[in-house]
């Protein structure tokens, strides 16, 4: 604990007393925190330590503060645990990451209204009725030094951020390279110029080439693990992994209205014992979230075995994604017994705990047949569970290590047409491991498969899956 504190203190003190003239601007930045609420008490302690030496340090996030932990993402209001921790720490600004849009325009408007710091994005236009208040830039006065920070949000090939298009309905976006030149005037008025981007390390290298008059790009989106920072075209670029393995302390020496030297160093968040007490208390509060105990449905009877619970999961995915057929690897079902009675959000997260996402694809009957066999092989010779079709699996022998024949039947008991096309949903794990030839590889959805089950159960109320199975085995 002491060692960790001393290393931070030494880091700051060395640069503090090392300056003969001018001023020092310090920026503590993080990116892609993705709901890492468990790391925030450590982050708070580091900020406290640095502020004790330099109270003017700017604390900045490059976006994707949310999505990645049900304790944050299922909280109502959504993402409030993360926001309240960022408020407690005293963040000065955040970029808008593509995952900030995951709870649609209304959700983002609420998140922003709860935040005590501004969100910066110069390449987004939000109509007043959206309720979203975003600033293009901020100018911070750091000991008389003007630090201009211009925000840029991610825009994909379709002209929208990487989220479901419904999540950004009514908002419009411009490409970074079209917008940044419009703020050249800002860079002429500031002593230190920072691009706070959520576009990815590769794009940031290009931005550095095009706009070398920036001193620093606080980068994010690609979860790139840099050793401190890298200079590209004279611009210092920083980025620091995913879910707060480290944070970046950037030190800029300013003389005569210009940055004369700059460096970035990583500070590790690997000592849970060194935490800020207030943030730790908040974390404990949020980890006891009543949302986890919320009842979403009921089982009419006890359920024994992986098969019935797997069939229920597949039914939920199939209906929620409006598909003909759903499939799940056998190993993806993590409960084999649930007692009759209420089912909570926590039960669903234990049943489907991997934060997988649905992948929807169009397959012919033959492609589905081959995909099921490929899934069987990759999932340690366990046949997958399905909905929308049933299977008769004939193995070569009792060891069940090899499939001799696979017959598929539709919900009416008729043989599945091998030439007909079906809309099929599975999860990203199965879509990855089932390496069979298929024309359509599919598209990954933006929700988790456990969320699909929760929403489906909320609509169904009471369900009964006792004794259900989707395949029979012979040899």
């Amino acid at each position, binding site marked *: 604990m002491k060692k960790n504190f001393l290393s931070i203190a030494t880091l700051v003190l060395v640069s503090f007393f090392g300056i003969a003239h001018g001023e020092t601007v310090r920026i503590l930045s993080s990116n892609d925190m993705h709901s890492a609420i468990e790391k925030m008490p450590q982050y708070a302690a580091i900020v406290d330590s640095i502020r004790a030496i330099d109270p003017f340090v700017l604390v900045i996030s490059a976006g994707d503060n949310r999505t990645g932990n049900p304790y944050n993402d299922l909280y109502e209001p959504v993402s409030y645990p993360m926001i309240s921790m960022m408020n407690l720490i005293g963040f000065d600004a955040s970029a808008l990451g593509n995952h900030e849009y995951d709870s649609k325009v209304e959700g983002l408007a609420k998140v922003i209204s709860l935040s005590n710091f501004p969100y910066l994005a110069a390449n987004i236009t939000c109509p007043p009725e959206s309720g979203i208040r975003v600033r293009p830039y901020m100018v911070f006065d750091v000991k008389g030094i003007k630090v201009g920070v211009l925000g840029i949000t991610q825009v994909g090939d379709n002209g929208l951020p990487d989220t479901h298009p419904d999540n950004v309905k009514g908002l419009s976006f411009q490409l970074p390279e079209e917008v940044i030149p419009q703020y050249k005037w800002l860079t002429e008025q500031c002593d230190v110029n920072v691009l706070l981007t959520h576009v990815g390390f*590769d794009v940031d290298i290009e931005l550095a080439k095009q706009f070398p008059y920036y001193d620093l790009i606080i980068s994010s*989106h690609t979860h790139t*693990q840099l050793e401190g920072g890298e200079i590209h075209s004279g611009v210092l670029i920083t980025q620091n992994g995913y879910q707060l393995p480290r944070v970046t302390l950037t030190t800029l020496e300013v003389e005569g209205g210009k940055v004369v030297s700059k460096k970035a160093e990583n500070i590790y968040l690997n000592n849970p014992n060194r935490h800020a007490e207030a943030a730790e208390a908040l974390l404990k509060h949020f980890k006891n979230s009543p949302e986890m105990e919320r009842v979403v449905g009921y089982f009419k009877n006890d359920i024994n075995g992986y098969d019935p619970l797997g069939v229920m999961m597949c039914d939920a995915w199939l209906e929620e994604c409006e598909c003909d057929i759903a499939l799940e690897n056998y190993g993806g079902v993590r409960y084999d017994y649930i007692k009759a009675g209420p089912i909570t959000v926590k039960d669903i997260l234990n049943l489907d705990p991997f934060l997988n996402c649905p*992948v929807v*694809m169009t397959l012919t009957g033959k492609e589905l047949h081959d995909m099921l066999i490929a899934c069987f092989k990759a999932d340690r010779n366990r046949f997958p569970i399905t909905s929308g079709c049933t299977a008769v699996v004939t193995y070569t022998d009792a060891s069940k290590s090899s499939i001799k024949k696979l017959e598929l039947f539709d919900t009416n008991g008729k043989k599945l047409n091998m030439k007909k096309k079906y809309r099929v949903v599975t999860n*990203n794990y199965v879509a990855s*491991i089932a390496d069979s030839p298929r024309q359509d590889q*599919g598209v990954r959805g933006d929700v988790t498969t456990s969320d699909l089950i929760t929403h489906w159960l909320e609509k169904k109320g009471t369900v009964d899956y006792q004794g259900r199975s989707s395949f029979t085995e012979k040899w």
Partner: protein
Amino acid sequence: MTIIVNNSKIRIFKGAKVGDAVLRWAVRNRFDISQVSSLQVTDQWGHLLDNAAPLKDKQSINILYQ
């Protein structure tokens, strides 16, 4: 979309993350998929990436064996 993993093309679903491409690569190369978490993945410049990192069409990544 297509991802280039260790100089080999892999066709995978749109929106795939680094972890998805690593799994596909592991199955194709008969690498034990229960051990994929031990693999290190880097971008074209050699920076470490995690499994949740997003991928773009035609992006190159490298898997390092321990």
